[in-house]
């Protein structure tokens, strides 16, 4: 009997091994496959990045924050051979991991909002998604929640895509396909896609999974948006077409572009990747539920996700742009992309696993180089990325030693008013954030952003050598020793010590300025305005 009792344990262990391939092993496979796929020889790639830069990079990528001077020193002085693996394991298990990833997806989803009122889902999206990710939930379970959500935007973050697309049937279909499959099928919305093989009808068949979803404002304080389902069995099945009021039991209609005054043909739900169909009259929950199930089981689902994170972490996707995988597109390292996607599926769509794996690759751990020219080989180096709004906000606060909660007190968070846009973080994000799905080389800093970094009065106040502020404290502690203060300022902002050349420039400036404290104010100001500070190296 004992033998039989052990058997399930064996089975479980076997499944676990099968389900979660070793990150380091997969990382080695990926590196090998990339080298073969793109013909990359060891001499052609950038050297391994230094410890300090690795720590800043990994911290920003995983928890959205820069390390403290103490953390940098400890990490650099640690002699353990496996310290990079250990710090990554540590970072992916911090609460900030889920929060940082949730904020990334908030930007992905809400950057494409149709109307600003959709921003009121921000808070719930951030906290719910952070919780699910931190609980180790599978990306497929999370995606299913987004696709099948109902209810209040303020209470359920899973409503985000439906709310951002304002409950519009065709827009929701397009966005679900873009975000979760990396397929831009909406290009076929009006006409057959000029170069992809999707047909106009296939887009509308996808849209036909969503005609019963609607978003309505709910008056009151605070104002809310609610995802409704029009599924009333006691209402007649509408046969007259375009039912914008979402009453009764609507179906989707495809307009004839030649006859815009007519509602067009009624379309039956059919999923373009698998051919799965739902008959007319199927209830909403079943429609969206079956779509979510089929969609998350498809290869495209895993490929789209690993491609997106690969691009975030290495600087370039296998497919570019990150949300346009084809069909008919050739990935830059096909076998590596396929291996990573398959292993991610085997991991149970585990985001922690994916991060541990990608961060263990040589491709990740190389120094950065400027984005490659079109003809050059991909993945020979990492690429420095502009910090997203949240990352820059947190990095700035950390460097200045300011607590976000104190800002809230000052900045009048006006809870419950407007769309919740009034928190300092969201205001900062609206000034400095960008759509993470846009090709990264098109993300450019603007003149108003540069002016804000250089001249915001509060920021300049925080840079001054006042008691209780950074430079004031350092001047006291280091008794006006310019080199020592400069080292600390470098650690606080760039998470590294200055080079000898840089220190010489600083000391030269001190000589010119005369007063150490004011020269250090200048240095602090300058460091906060460097490209290195606002990028993840």
């Amino acid at each position: 009997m004992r033998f039989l009792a052990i058997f399930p344990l064996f089975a479980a262990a076997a499944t676990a091994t099968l389900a979660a391939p070793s990150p380091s092993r997969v990382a080695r496979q990926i590196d090998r496959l990339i080298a073969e796929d793109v013909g990359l020889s060891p001499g052609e790639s950038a050297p391994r990045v230094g410890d300090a830069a690795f720590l800043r990079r990994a911290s920003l990528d995983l928890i959205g924050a820069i390390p403290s001077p103490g953390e940098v020193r400890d990490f650099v002085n640690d002699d353990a051979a496996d310290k990079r693996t250990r710090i990554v394991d540590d970072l992916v298990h911090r609460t900030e991991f889920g929060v940082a990833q949730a904020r990334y997806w908030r930007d992905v989803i809400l950057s494409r909002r149709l109307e600003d009122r959709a921003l009121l889902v921000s808070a719930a999206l951030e906290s719910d998604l952070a919780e699910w990710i931190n609980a180790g939930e599978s990306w497929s379970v999370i995606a299913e929640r987004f696709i099948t959500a109902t209810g209040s935007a303020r209470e359920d973050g899973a409503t985000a895509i439906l709310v951002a697309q304002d409950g519009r049937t065709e827009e929701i279909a397009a966005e679900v396909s873009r975000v979760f499959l990396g397929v831009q099928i909406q290009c076929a919305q009006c006409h057959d896609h000029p170069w992809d093989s999707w047909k106009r009808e296939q887009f509308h068949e996808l849209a036909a999974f969503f005609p019963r979803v609607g978003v309505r404002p709910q008056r009151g304080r605070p104002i809310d948006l609610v995802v409704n389902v029009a599924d009333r069995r006691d209402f007649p099945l509408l046969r007259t077409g375009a039912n914008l009021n979402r009453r009764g039991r609507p179906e989707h209609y495809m307009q004839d572009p030649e006859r815009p005054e007519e509602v067009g043909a009624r379309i039956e739900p059919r999923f373009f990747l698998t051919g799965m169909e739902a008959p007319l009259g199927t209830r909403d929950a079943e429609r969206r539920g079956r779509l979510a199930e089929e969609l998350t089981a498809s290869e495209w689902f895993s490929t789209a996700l690993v491609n997106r994170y690969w691009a975030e972490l290495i600087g370039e996707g296998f497919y570019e742009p990150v949300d346009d995988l084809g069909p008919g597109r050739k990935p830059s390292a096909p076998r590596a992309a396929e291996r990573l996607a398959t292993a991610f599926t085997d991991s149970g769509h585990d985001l922690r696993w994916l991060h541990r794996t990608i961060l263990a690759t040589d491709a990740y751990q190389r120094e950065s180089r400027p984005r490659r020219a079109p003809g050059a080989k991909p993945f020979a180096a990492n690429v420095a990325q502009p910090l997203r709004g949240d990352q820059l906000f947190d990095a700035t606060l950390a460097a200045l030693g300011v607590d976000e909660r104190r800002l809230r007190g000052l900045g009048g968070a006006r809870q419950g008013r407007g769309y919740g846009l009034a928190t300092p973080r969201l205001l900062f994000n609206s000034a400095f954030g960008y759509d993470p799905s846009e090709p990264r080389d098109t993300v450019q800093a603007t003149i108003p952003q540069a002016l804000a970094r250089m001249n915001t009065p509060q920021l300049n106040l925080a840079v001054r050598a006042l008691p209780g502020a950074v430079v004031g404290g350092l001047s006291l502690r280091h008794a006006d020793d310019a080199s020592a203060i400069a080292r600390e300022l470098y650690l606080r902002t760039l998470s590294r010590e200055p080079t000898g050349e840089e220190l010489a420039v600083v000391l030269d400036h001190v000589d010119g300025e005369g007063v150490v404290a004011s020269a250090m104010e200048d240095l602090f100001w300058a460091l906060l305005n460097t490209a290195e500070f606002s990028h993840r190296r």
Partner: protein
Amino acid sequence: MTHWLRGAEVRLTRRGAVASRRDFLRTASAVAAAGVTMSWTQRVALAAETLRRGGKRCVLLWMEGGPSQFETLDPKPGSRSAGDAGAIATAVPGIQLSENLPELAKAMGDLAVVRSLTSKEGSHPRARYLMHHGYLPMGGANLPTLGSAVAERLDAERAADAAAALPSFVRVGRTSGGGGGGMLGVDYDPLVIDDPSRPPRNARPASSVLRYRRRLGLLERLETDFGAAEGTDLVDAQRKLVAAASGMILSPDMQAFDLEREPLSARQAYGEGRFASGCLLARRLLEAGVTFVEVTLGGWDTHDDNHERSKALAAQFDRPAARLLADLKARGMLDSTLVVWMGEFGRTPRINGRGGRDHYPRAFSAWLAGCGVQGGRAIGATDGLGAEVVERPVSPQDLFCSIYHTLGIDASHENTTSAGRPVKLVDGGSVIEELFA
């Protein structure tokens, strides 16, 4: 930022010629005898010379919330739809405007009023988007707003003259959902000025100019490590950006933002209020070489107390708008400057229980002036109640085609989204020929 910097490159490539307006100013300054500094007005007069040779410009007077046509451009005195305001004769026989617009009535000779705009979009955000982009929102296509599209097209045509320190598109007042550069990139995002009576945000160095320059010097020398290999391009871009931003705020062109430099009489001529200041600022910015200025007057969503509120709002734009036209004319700039007045939709013929009018996209009005538009005419008409367009319907696409046409821009020009999808400036629509014939 790159097109703000293009000037520097242009200067390098055109030896011997006065390549940019700033250069022109510098040259002119240098010519002026030592110790004699030119006044702002003189400098502007010289700049205007070069502008006149150059391209066209545009001002959008944006009426946010949906202005009532009955209380502005399409009064229906004596009908069921009429509110409290009557109609008055204008400088043009046969054309009446609401009595709320006495100054524009005098300027009617310059205005082409379109009374037959019609659309289906009655929700604020979507209509606002439509009347700023010429399209309804489309997922995945990050379209440029009118000001950005115009600035980009006009700059493309006159690269040599685009070397201003100031951006090419300035928006005065907050317009939620007014859009930005979109797929054209941040170069064509508007510089937003919340309050026209104050300088742009963060445009004043927090330290003295001398110390600011020293700090900039330090910053310039610092990024040798990151710039060596890992972030060569990024350090380079950041340096250019810092140079452009600090160049802008330290530039004499920033005086354009300072309304205090305008004589008191000129300020008084525009009247009181933010919108009036915005119109004056618009004129100064156009003179300083800005291509597109959008000035917003909000508060038009008059679901209650429409008559009083519309009257007060009309009083806020009537005088400044008329003054802007007169000023542009006096400076010889109206021939090359298009001024457009519009909002997202009109308001209902029916007056509701709260004395208000609700959203009404089916028939509404706008006006255009300058840049070759024939003034003194009313185009299209609504029925006796103002409920239906009965003559010469004009779609938002027609209006956008006409705006682009007036500015000499090909409305079928295609921009490309990041996904490689080409999108025309306007899809469909045709030019309103009556504006020119």
